[in-house]
């Protein structure tokens, strides 16, 4: 065992050294590449070799050598390779799609690759996320992907972003890139990236995969600046042109719940890289997946390309007068959370409900673990068998006597009773049914001297079964086995009465609502971006913090309990009340302009 730990330590140390040396080498080479690529071009020095491939003095010799197999392609050539070396691509998602896509981009020598992922590597990712290895478990996916990409091509710049992309940071990240690859795994991020690509006027190459199927298309393509385009004004549809409304959350599957075959995202990711390369080297939209969608079905290994609708001139995002002029809170818009981790919680409650439904209809289900003190542990993995019709009563006493009619009930009757009880009745009706069949009577006192006293045993129960409208007295065994229930359940049902459940009322939210109704407000200044919004018009209140303090003071005066900050801001958001009455379209433009200035310097 000692030898194992020694070796493990040594390997870890060596890996650290290796990483340091790789980083050093990368930095040296990188500085050199940048200098090579920025030396001025001399068009006269272009010459042609005998194979017809155009060589240029602009591309260093190592690059011509290294990328020769793709430079040989007439579609790429030296000019295309130069464009590739200068291209900047943002890959959002370092998962099943992002890994293969970025591998080919790095291999092709794309000058700058940004890779975004908030998640860490899990062992369940590795079957499809080919940039992560076993040793990378729990490491940031963006970091792990970036490290592998650098070892594939040390001459390019790879920037990992270990963040959750949202409306506050997306613009800043994406402003440094010319293309976005949507390799994300959720609906909110897809809408976010679409609006982002439209605002930045860069294309979005959108891939998706689930189970055995994949889909691929390019959104937000613009023909301007491409000399190969016949119509320089052509613009392809955006995601919102085709899907203006997000799907209902329950209709959206994910790889972690529905599964995916590793090669499916592999195929789609590789094709995303291909489309990106074609776009960079200047293919016109007729050759790209613009206004078309590729459908890949791994079940029968078919590729189909279908025609999509053109750009919608009234699209909320990409029309000339868009109603979306800034990034939104996409998790709220799509009623879904972007992080799968968070989604697991909702899945958990869904599963609880599912198991409860099964339990209540007599099917087998998974119950909660029970701790030694009898309380539930919130782990639901104890298998419970389905309800079964138990054996009938074989007691000779029941058969001989006249008071109980166990022997008169046929097996078919019992089956019918069991089925009626478990299939036709809901939970409340089940309780009522059991209560109607069990009578509680004071225990019989047989000895004369106790006659009239109350027994310490408590009450006796008289069980009945209903057959053909007749209420027949039976013994306990017959009763429990025929309905397929246990005695404890009967006992608890008899002792408790049905209280109608009162759903919690959002009292505090109500009190916030009346507060908002009362305070003075003004109409928006801008009619475009501020539709349906209201603005607070109180002196000295310019932010949510001050508004909340005002609310708390009012509550104190009225003697009511104030809602929490969280509830308060939630209500404010849903009511669409804003603090500053400024036009967001204009500030957006100002912001965008500043960004352009920022990175061109």
């Amino acid at each position, binding site marked *: 065992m000692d030898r194992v730990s020694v070796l493990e330590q040594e390997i870890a140390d060596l890996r650290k050294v290796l990483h340091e040396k790789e980083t050093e080498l990368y930095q040296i080479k990188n500085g050199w590449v940048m200098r090579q690529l920025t030396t001025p071009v001399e068009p006269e020095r272009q010459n042609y070799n005998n194979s017809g491939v155009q060589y240029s003095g602009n591309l260093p010799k190592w690059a011509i050598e290294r990328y020769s197999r793709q430079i040989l392609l007439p579609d790429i050539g030296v000019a295309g390779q130069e464009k590739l070396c200068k291209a900047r691509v943002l890959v959002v998602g370092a998962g099943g799609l992002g890994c293969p896509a970025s591998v080919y981009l790095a291999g092709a020598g794309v000058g700058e690759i940004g890779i975004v992922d908030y998640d860490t590597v899990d062992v369940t990712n590795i079957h499809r996320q080919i940039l992560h290895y076993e040793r990378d478990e729990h490491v940031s996916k963006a970091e792990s992907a970036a490290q592998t990409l650098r070892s594939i091509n040390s001459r390019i710049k790879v920037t990992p972003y270990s963040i959750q992309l949202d409306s506050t940071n997306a613009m800043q990240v994406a402003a440094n890139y010319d293309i976005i690859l949507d390799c994300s795994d959720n609906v909110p991020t897809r809408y976010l990236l679409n609006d982002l690509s439209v605002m930045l006027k860069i294309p979005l190459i959108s891939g998706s995969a689930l189970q055995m199927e994949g*889909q691929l298309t390019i959104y937000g393509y613009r023909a301007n600046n491409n000399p190969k385009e016949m119509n320089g004004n052509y613009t392809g549809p955006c995601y919102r042109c085709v*899907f203006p409304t997000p799907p209902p959350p329950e209709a959206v599957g994910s790889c972690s719940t529905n599964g995916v075959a590793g090669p499916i995202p592999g195929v789609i990711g590789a094709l995303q890289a291909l489309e990106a390369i074609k776009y960079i080297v200047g293919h016109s939209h007729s050759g790209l997946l613009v206004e078309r969608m590729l459908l890949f079905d791994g079940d029968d290994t078919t590729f189909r390309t*279908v025609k999509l609708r053109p750009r919608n001139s009234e699209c909320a995002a990409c029309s000339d007068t868009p109603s979306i002029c800034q990034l939104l809170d996409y998790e709220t818009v799509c009623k879904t959370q972007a992080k799968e981790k968070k989604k697991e919680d909702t899945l958990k409650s869904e599963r609880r409900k599912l198991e409860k439904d099964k339990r209540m209809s007599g099917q087998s289900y998974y119950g909660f673990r029970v701790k030694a003190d009898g309380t539930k542990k919130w782990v639901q993995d104890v298998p419970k068998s389905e309800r079964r019709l138990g054996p009938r009563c074989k007691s000779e006493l029941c058969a001989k006597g006249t008071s109980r009619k166990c022997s008169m009930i046929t097996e078919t009757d019992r089956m019918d009773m069991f089925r009626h009880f478990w299939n036709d009745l809901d939970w409340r009706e089940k309780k009522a049914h059991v209560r109607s069949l069990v009578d509680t009577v004071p225990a019989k006192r047989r000895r004369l001297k106790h006659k009239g006293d109350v027994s310490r045993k408590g009450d006796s129960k008289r069980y009945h079964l209903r057959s053909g409208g007749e209420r027949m007295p039976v013994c306990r065994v017959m009763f429990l086995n025929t309905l397929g229930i246990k005695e404890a359940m009967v006992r608890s049902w008899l002792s408790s009465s049905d209280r109608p459940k009162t759903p919690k009322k959002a009292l505090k939210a109500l009190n916030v609502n009346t507060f908002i109704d009362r305070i003075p407000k003004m109409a928006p200044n801008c009619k475009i971006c501020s539709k349906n919004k209201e603005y607070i018009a109180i002196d000295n209140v310019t932010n949510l913090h001050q508004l909340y303090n005002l609310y708390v003071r009012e509550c104190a005066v009225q003697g009511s309990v104030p809602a929490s900050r969280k509830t308060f801001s939630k209500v404010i958001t849903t009511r669409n009340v804003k603090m500053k009455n400024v036009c967001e379209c204009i500030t957006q433009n100002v912001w965008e302009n500043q960004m352009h200035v920022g990175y061109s310097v």
Partner: protein
Amino acid sequence: MPALKINVHFGGGAELLFDKIKKREVELPAVDKYLPECEKKGWTIRELLVWIKENLLRERPELFLQGESVRPGILVLINDTDWELYGELDYELQPSDTITFISTLHGG
């Protein structure tokens, strides 16, 4: 009017609501017999959706339909072309048309 034979395809997970069958050839009865109140001579996608709901849909109609149309996130293709280019619900079905319902995927 003779029965109308068309192909109905499901994909992207939409087939799960239809017995997991991705490709079907279906024969639609005369529309004035099937839906006498709609007073139309030919089948349009609008009536097809009603027919699909009553004859093919196995579970959870809300995951396929919304109002008289399909729910957001399902792409409808008429012979491999977005139905928007054919007038969506009002497109009149022709013999041996292929109507495809693709649920969009979001995984990666």
